[in-house]
């Protein structure tokens, strides 16, 4: 209905790749992309229990006169009606408030630091805070525009992972792309994971949506990741079972994000999935 994706536009070639990716994602998942062209480097996002100040790096303010044009052009080329966000409230004259009732948000791996740090293994601090507080999943785009053609969900059995799984079902249903589930079988057995699914009454959905459920048996997670298709949208939860789970991202998640360069759709703890 009124599902929206927030995208903060950087008027640079790198920003163009990110915007193209957001547009493709929006079309597949049937949401409307809403573009924010920043006029100042800072803005505030007030979540339910946290206020995050986003300090964009200066490349976001590059060539402001052509920003609107470029963004509109890309959107119209893709056949999407251009919608721009105009902040209505300001905490201070240079500090606009961006509202947070979106359904998705897309950002590159880092929004506060220079583009040079957009390599693997790095997810900026701001992005992490957004994932932690937001009620929407965050799409972390790959550096180059690549149309994904399948969905890969990493399922580890935690509450977060269930949300990621349900989100995967939902995207599979709306976009029609094939869905694969990957589980790292370390010390537990395959049956224990299947039992978890059964306990949550998700067996029918599993059989309906999931193409193959891969059980990765190699002890080291990194070595298994070659099995993930290069053009898949990877959906995963940010946190795991760890005791400090609300402070740091799960260890597996860190490994995954530092090994593969696919688009990542990360689900935070405040997201409640509906299939």
């Amino acid at each position: 209905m009124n599902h929206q994706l927030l995208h903060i536009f950087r008027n640079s070639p790198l920003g163009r790749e990110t915007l193209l990716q957001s547009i493709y994602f929006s079309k597949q998942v049937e949401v409307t992309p809403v573009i924010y062209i920043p006029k100042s480097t800072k803005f505030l996002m007030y979540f339910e229990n946290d206020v995050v100040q986003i300090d964009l790096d200066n490349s976001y303010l590059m060539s402001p006169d052509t920003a609107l044009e470029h963004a509109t052009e890309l959107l119209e080329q893709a056949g999407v009606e251009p919608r721009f966000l105009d902040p209505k409230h300001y905490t201070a004259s240079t500090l606009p408030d961006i509202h947070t009732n979106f359904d998705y948000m897309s950002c590159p791996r880092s929004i506060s630091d220079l583009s040079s740090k957009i390599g693997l293994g790095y997810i900026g601090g701001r992005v992490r805070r957004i994932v932690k507080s937001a009620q929407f999943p965050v799409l972390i785009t790959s550096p180059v525009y690549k149309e994904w053609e399948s969905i890969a969900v990493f399922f580890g059995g935690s509450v977060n992972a269930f949300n990621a799984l349900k989100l995967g079902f939902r995207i599979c249903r709306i976009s029609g792309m094939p869905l694969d589930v990957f589980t790292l079988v370390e010390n537990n057995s395959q049956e224990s994971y299947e039992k978890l699914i059964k306990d949550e009454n998700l067996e029918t959905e599993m059989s309906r949506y999931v193409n193959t459920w891969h059980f990765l048996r190699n002890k080291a997670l990194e070595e298994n990741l070659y099995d993930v298709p290069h053009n898949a949208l990877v959906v995963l939860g940010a946190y795991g079972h760890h005791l400090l789970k609300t402070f740091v991202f799960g260890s597996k998640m860190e490994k995954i994000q530092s090994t593969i360069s696919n688009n990542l759709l990360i689900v935070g703890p405040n997201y409640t999935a509906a299939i």
Partner: protein
Amino acid sequence: MKMTIHEVAQCLNLHVSTVERWIRQGRIPIQKTGNGYLFSESALKKWAAMYRLPFLIPEKVKSRGYEERLENLLSAMKRGGVMYDIKGDDVETALKSAVENMPVLSKTSKKELYQLLLERERLTSTGIGKGVAIPHPRDPLPDALKSPVISTCFLEKSIDFGAVDDKPVFVMFIFLSQSIKIHLHLLSRFSFCVRDNSFVEFLKTSPDEASFFAKIADFEKQLDRAET
């Protein structure tokens, strides 16, 4: 009973986002824990009573929905029967002989009915034009009847009913219902039939019961289709 947040919103007759907002602002005694919500039904009820907010469990609301099943023309007409060659030169005698012949009523109620029908005629004629009249008591008869009755009475000869188009009436349909709602419902369906001129011509031939009821059934089917 463990309710979901949607059910709570329904009970309070509020939108789900309103309830979620009040939880976030701390105005309703429900706490949010990660993915779920913590609350006790009794605390909620007390809170709702304090603000005079309605807190109705929807199942109870649904049970009131047992509407009176509105009957259709065919069964009412079958109950009332079809009478032919009713004698009478004017309104009163025609009505009297019609009422005498009606199958379902006792002697006393027939007398009462006759009086009621006359009263109604005196207010305005029930001749609705094209030779059809629909005598009926002005107020419904909830005690005398359990189900509506329509008696079809073909008159021996056409009489002046004071109808709207001044044409003489050749058939009377006596409508008896136990509530105004049913009466209006039947009347509305009946008028659909009468609007069709070919039906009126058909009536002029004084058809037998079977073909008459078949025709009525046809019209009912059309009406049902239009309504869905």
